[in-house]
């Protein structure tokens, strides 16, 4: 099972390929930032138009669940960052373990998020889904709609991230991904994971901590 450092067609050397992969991923992340940025813009404009109502709605959200989830994602990012360092040193099993830990933390986030949706549903917070709505005011409805769209979009991104990490773990265990030769693959995938974390870092205060 010896593997050459794979250099794809247009590249002439691995360094060039790594640089291109990193740049490509960073540019992709820039476009992801713009995607979520549109939602943030919508959120801030609504907040500007209805400051009181939206602060009131925000207070109804489960601040502590969101906080724990933030901590979970930050920890998962740590695991991914460690995995990248370990990959450069070539400890295959340790890389697989820390990536698996990160993916598991991500899954934990999703489970907790599902619990939170469930609570919000029974509280009558989720518009359109709850039978008896707690809010009479359209602006609070609006806020809950934006909350739902933003968190679901984030959850979709996180799920993709979990699949990505799980795939890497699988390949590492099957030895079809070699470290440290292809540590670059783990670094580039890690970037995506961290961005999903960064987006949550902004979503959390923007949604839960409006006062």
């Amino acid at each position, binding site marked *: 099972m010896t593997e050459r450092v794979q250099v794809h067609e*247009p590249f002439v050397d691995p360094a060039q390929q790594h640089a*291109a992969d990193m740049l490509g991923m960073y540019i992709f992340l820039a476009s992801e930032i713009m995607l979520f*940025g549109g*939602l943030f813009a919508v959120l801030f404009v609504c907040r500007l138009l209805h400051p009181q109502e939206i602060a009131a709605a925000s207070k109804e959200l489960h601040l502590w669940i969101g906080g724990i989830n933030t901590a979970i994602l930050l920890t998962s990012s740590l695991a991914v960052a460690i995995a990248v360092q370990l990959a450069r040193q070539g400890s295959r099993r340790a890389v697989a373990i820390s990536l698996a830990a990160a993916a598991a933390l991500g899954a934990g986030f999703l489970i907790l998020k599902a619990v939170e949706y469930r609570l919000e549903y029974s509280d009558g917070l989720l518009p359109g889904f709850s039978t008896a709505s707690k809010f009479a005011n359209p602006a609070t409805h609006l806020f809950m709609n934006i909350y739902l769209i933003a968190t679901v979009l984030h959850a979709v991104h996180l799920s993709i991230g979990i699949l990505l990490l799980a795939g890497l773990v699988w390949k590492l265990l099957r030895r079809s991904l070699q470290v440290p030769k292809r540590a670059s693959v783990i670094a580039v995938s890690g970037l995506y994971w961290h961005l999903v974390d960064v987006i949550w870092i902004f979503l959390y205060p923007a949604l839960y901590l409006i006062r």
Partner: protein
Amino acid sequence: MTSDHMVDAASHPAQPGIAETAEERVSYLRAGHTLGSWLFTSDHKRIAILYFISVTFFFFVGGAAATLMRADLLTPQADLLSDEGYNRAFTLHGVIMVWFFLIPSIPNTFGNFLVPLMIGARDLAFPRLNLLSWYIYMLGGLFTIYVLIAGGVDTGWTFYTPLSSMFANGNVVLAATAVFIVGFSSILTGLNFIVTIHKLRAPGMTWGRLPLFIWSLYATSLILVLATPILSVTLALIAAERLFGIGVFNPSLGGDPLLYQHLFWFYSHPAVYIMVLPALGVVSELVAAAARKPVFGYQFVAGSSIAIAAIGFLVWGHHMFVAGQSAYASAIFSFLSLAVAVPSGIKVYNWTATLYKGQISLDPPFLFAMSFIGLFVVGGLTGVILAMLAVDVHVHDTYFVVAHFHYIMVGGTVSAYFGALHYWWPKIIGRRYSLAWGRLSAALIFLGFNLTFFPQFLLGYLGMPRRYHVYPPEFQVLHVLSTAGASILGVAYLLPFTYLFYSMRYGKPAGANPWEATGLEWSIPSPPPKHNFAERPTVTRAPYDYTIEYEESDD
């Protein structure tokens, strides 16, 4: 595949076409001739051809909608189309022309073909991503065709809320989905170009030696990557608003309809530069080749592409001067819109200066380039008129605006597209076409275009609103002129496809460099071999390094 095998399959021996050349036999065109070898290729040149075919298809679909509209506008009454029919025609015309023709036109065909050739690379940085981007484009295209068959959509290409989110009865969600999908194709293409231009330049191909077409594509790609996601999320919100009534753009639910316009134009104004920047790059190439001289002020022309892309993000509010935007914000946007005219002006003046003391050729590509400059000047300066606040209050949403952006997008981008087609066709196909027919179609397009759209400036100032097919009778004469021009234009657009297609078999072999131009793409055989360069080129010379004849002087 062996090349012998291909000779049999690729041409019918009974035809008296010119026999296949040695270059063709080893070219990318003959590297596999099954349908699968095209549909699953990762060769940027073949993907460019795939785009060329699909983009051309949508150009004629969008053109058909325009034909219906112009025919209906012959008379002040509605006699060809119903109200609904007309609304659906202009919506589809806009959606198809903007997202399925203009935005992908030059970048995805000529950009795909030329970026690696011009910078001396084997392919784009992510070849499979490039193919994926074509499939995404086609998926979006299929949705659009489905919308067309299912009865169309009647919101205008701008999808303004609350009309689109609550009142329109067409297939708004499907149409938004189509545009949403095609957006990802744009993002992936932009990403691919940026990484390629940064990381795959041949040794010696410094930023100061990059062809200006590459500079303009780089600027375009920045916009593609940074602006398109905003459109995606906005369209998703429209769909959510329509399906679930979330209320973001609905004032009775606490939302703001103007927020939609901010988001939409934050994408769509830069999108105008997505459409025109590649055209500016093409014209820089063509002007230099036409004059056989280096482009005057290379640094300014290159820098102005980047400046246009950057300032282009700061001006979107000029679409909202009468929309209820704050007057102070309007004043800021008006000022910034004037600023974006400066880099555009630099380009035009520099092209003119390039021609000075040149060896000017009037072959078809160069005629297209010169008509581009003329039409772009008219379009650009009428754009400055529109940026003037009080004037815009009068002519906003009238035919003046329609004429203005058609001068930029049709007079500008489409002329450059045809210019590029005539310039690089011998490279792409390896055959020469009839120059006389080329000159004729360039002249016809210029004539037909002006006859179609110049009367619309007058109509607009007279007060003819856009998106009207019933109008006061005093506007009829100008409308008839416009329709007459459109019929010339329609024929003129079809013409090149006949003689270019004809040249594929009957044209003379082009040779590596039929225009005697500089640039790496002309240093390899036509059509290019599958692997582009036999060995990785090293660049040692400045761009547009034409030999200037100092000695030829007597008067």
